[in-house]
């Protein structure tokens, strides 16, 4: 079918005075496949839109070029207009003659405007329609991890009417927080809270629990994941529409910073919890308990939160003297400054150091020598127990998980690349989310927000049971594809898979819902087998080539 292009020029209320619109119209009219050139004062308003509508419904044009303000602001308007007129919006090409031409330069810019219109025309000639279609999506969600975040995700999804399966590696639900008696952000003990969440999860008809289970393989993409779940010796494949990973973290005392020997008085948080739960078991009430932070990792919130909480618990239950040795107390979470002040008011002594304190064991007690910079003096404190800093680390198996999912990890090994476009809970891979400690949010307040965000994003994606996609906007030509796997490896959104066609040929296939339209695959394909409609090689080259046109000037 012959290409017929309709051109609309907008002079923005007549204000683009450094462009000679009639001149552009005259020059462009001469081109053979141009059906008409209209000049308008305000294409974006009612009047202009009506003019476009009547032209489109009237004359048989099959491509539209609009020369107006930046597509960044007006594109959506025109797309909607064209959709309403049953004209495929992919057949529209916009030239930015306002922000990037008239407003950007002094003097007469008719020449440049003509070039820009020419570029848009050249591209428009090659545009092809892209259909929009609804595709079904699987409404079930997989939650990996049965701790605070995992259970919360499942419960909130259930509230929204979505069925989930929770896969937990351990034989029981609860995760790391269930070991703690008290933790920043929890009004009741985490142990209690997690236990009651576990009960709720068991009773919830929308939630299926699979304990002592692990995932071994994830295939597919948004709306259509296929996951292999291993339980004991059995391995099953299950299908899900979206995946939420709440695999938590582990908190470890790094031995090289502390001398840990049997019977050591340098203890972990968990051991402190045991002491606090059964103080009578000790020979005598500990007189002095110390906490030490910022030795293994200066840049984590977790030790500060754990220490503040525990320090107050010690004061309440044991009445011991409490010293907290730290370099920079991390108070950048809600309510923590308040907790800090409360601790100080209750008599907890904070010793701030610049240089690492010296820790040694003397006569069954732990001696901490530090230079207290606030007072400028050396202090030596003999503690009955020294609670060591615990570094939040990615859970066992996080690296393996990242490779199963083909997603990245950050510089500390936690899930999710450090790219702000992924925040808060994205993975780069549509339909796959990371929440809470597994992505480095080790405090429960931020972890809660992660859960809320992921649940909402999942709901957006799956609730209707279908999703609208642009069909084959980016498409691999199986004839040209040599199955070199380059595009598959390179796609940042993991939207490409290797499939067999006609029972014999392997080819790459791009999945529309997962594709984010970056075009990296199209650029990298050595066989030039990938066509990205709207930004295809020929279409971009057409814009480049239009630069050399002369339009009858000398």
């Amino acid at each position: 079918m012959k290409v017929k292009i309709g051109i609309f020029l907008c002079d923005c209320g007549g204000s683009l005075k450094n462009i000679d619109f009639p001149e552009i119209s005259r020059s462009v009219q001469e081109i053979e496949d141009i059906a008409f050139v209209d000049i308008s004062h305000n294409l974006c308003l009612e009047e202009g839109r009506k003019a476009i509508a009547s032209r489109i419904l009237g004359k048989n044009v099959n491509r539209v070029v609009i020369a107006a303000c930046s597509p960044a602001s007006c594109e959506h308007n025109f797309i909607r207009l064209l959709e309403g007129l049953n004209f495929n919006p992919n057949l529209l090409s916009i030239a930015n003659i306002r922000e990037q031409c008239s407003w950007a330069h002094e003097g007469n810019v008719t020449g440049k405007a003509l070039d820009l219109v020419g570029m848009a025309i050249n591209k428009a000639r090659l545009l092809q329609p892209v259909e929009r279609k609804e595709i079904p999506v699987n409404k079930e969600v997989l939650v990996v991890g049965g701790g605070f975040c995992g259970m919360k995700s499942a419960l909130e999804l259930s509230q929204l009417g979505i069925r989930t399966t929770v896969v937990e590696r351990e034989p029981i639900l609860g995760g790391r927080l269930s070991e703690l008696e008290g933790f920043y952000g929890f009004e009741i003990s985490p142990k209690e809270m997690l236990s009651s969440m576990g009960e709720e999860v068991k009773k919830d008809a929308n939630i299926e629990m699979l304990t002592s289970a692990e995932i071994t393989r994830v295939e597919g993409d948004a709306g259509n994941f296929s996951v292999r779940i291993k339980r004991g010796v059995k391995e099953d494949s299950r299908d899900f529409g979206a995946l939420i990973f709440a695999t938590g973290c582990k908190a470890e005392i790094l031995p090289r910073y502390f001398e840990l020997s049997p019977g050591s008085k340098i203890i972990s948080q968990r051991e402190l919890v045991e002491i606090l739960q059964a103080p009578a078991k000790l020979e005598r009430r500990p007189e002095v308990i110390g906490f030490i932070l910022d030795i293994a990792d200066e840049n984590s919130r977790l030790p500060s939160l754990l220490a503040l909480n525990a320090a107050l618990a010690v004061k309440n239950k044991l009445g011991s003297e409490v010293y907290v040795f730290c370099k920079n107390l991390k108070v950048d979470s809600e309510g923590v400054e308040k907790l800090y002040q409360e601790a100080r008011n209750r008599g907890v002594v904070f010793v701030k150091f610049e240089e690492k304190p010296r820790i040694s064991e003397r006569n069954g007690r732990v001696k901490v020598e530090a230079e207290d910079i606030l007072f400028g003096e050396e202090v030596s404190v003999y503690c009955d127990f020294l609670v060591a800093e615990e570094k939040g680390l990615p859970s066992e198996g996080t690296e393996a998980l990242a490779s199963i999912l083909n997603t990245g990890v950050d510089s500390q090994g936690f899930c999710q690349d450090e790219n702000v476009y992924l925040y808060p809970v994205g993975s780069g891979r549509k339909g796959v989310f990371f929440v809470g400690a597994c992505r480095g949010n080790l405090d429960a307040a931020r972890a809660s927000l992660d859960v809320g965000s992921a649940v909402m994003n999942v709901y957006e994606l799956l609730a209707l049971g279908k999703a609208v996609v642009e069909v084959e906007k980016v498409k691999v030509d199986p004839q040209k594809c040599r199955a070199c796997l380059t595009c598959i490896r390179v796609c940042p959104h993991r939207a490409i898979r290797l499939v067999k066609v006609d029972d014999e040929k392997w080819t790459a296939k791009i999945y529309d819902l997962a594709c984010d339209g970056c075009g990296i695959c199209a650029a990298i394909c050595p066989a030039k087998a990938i066509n990205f409609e709207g930004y295809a090689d020929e279409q971009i080259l057409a814009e480049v080539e239009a630069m050399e046109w002369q339009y009858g000037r000398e």
Partner: protein
Amino acid sequence: MSRFLPKSKRWNGSMGGNNKIVAFCCENSAYLAADRAGKMRLHYPDNVRIIRVPCAGRVDVLHILRAFEKGAAGVLVMGCQEGACQHLTGNIRARERVRYIESALKEIGIDTRRVKMVNLGPDMAQKFVREVKEMVEKIEEE
């Protein structure tokens, strides 16, 4: 323009005085920065022709070479800051391709400063203008 024509090839399109610069601009950063420059009425030379791309990573070596072939005096590839690409690796790919072009230009005897990779944020109107002006100065040196 003595160094403009390589020894073995003739440019078609007979630009004669073509001093056009093609700027491939990523729609998340550079394209918005250019719009912002316009809104702020920051003026820059009108030689530049902006081509909008969804990601700097879409820009292929082929596109850059064709621009030179068709008479462009300079090519800018403008994308997001390193580490801030919405598509994670697009700007890195673009940079690699620009490097490749630099070595290709060197081989056919063209000043490698005629192609440049620029990273910026969507609000950096001044940087956009500065880079364009710099490129124009470079090509006018000839």
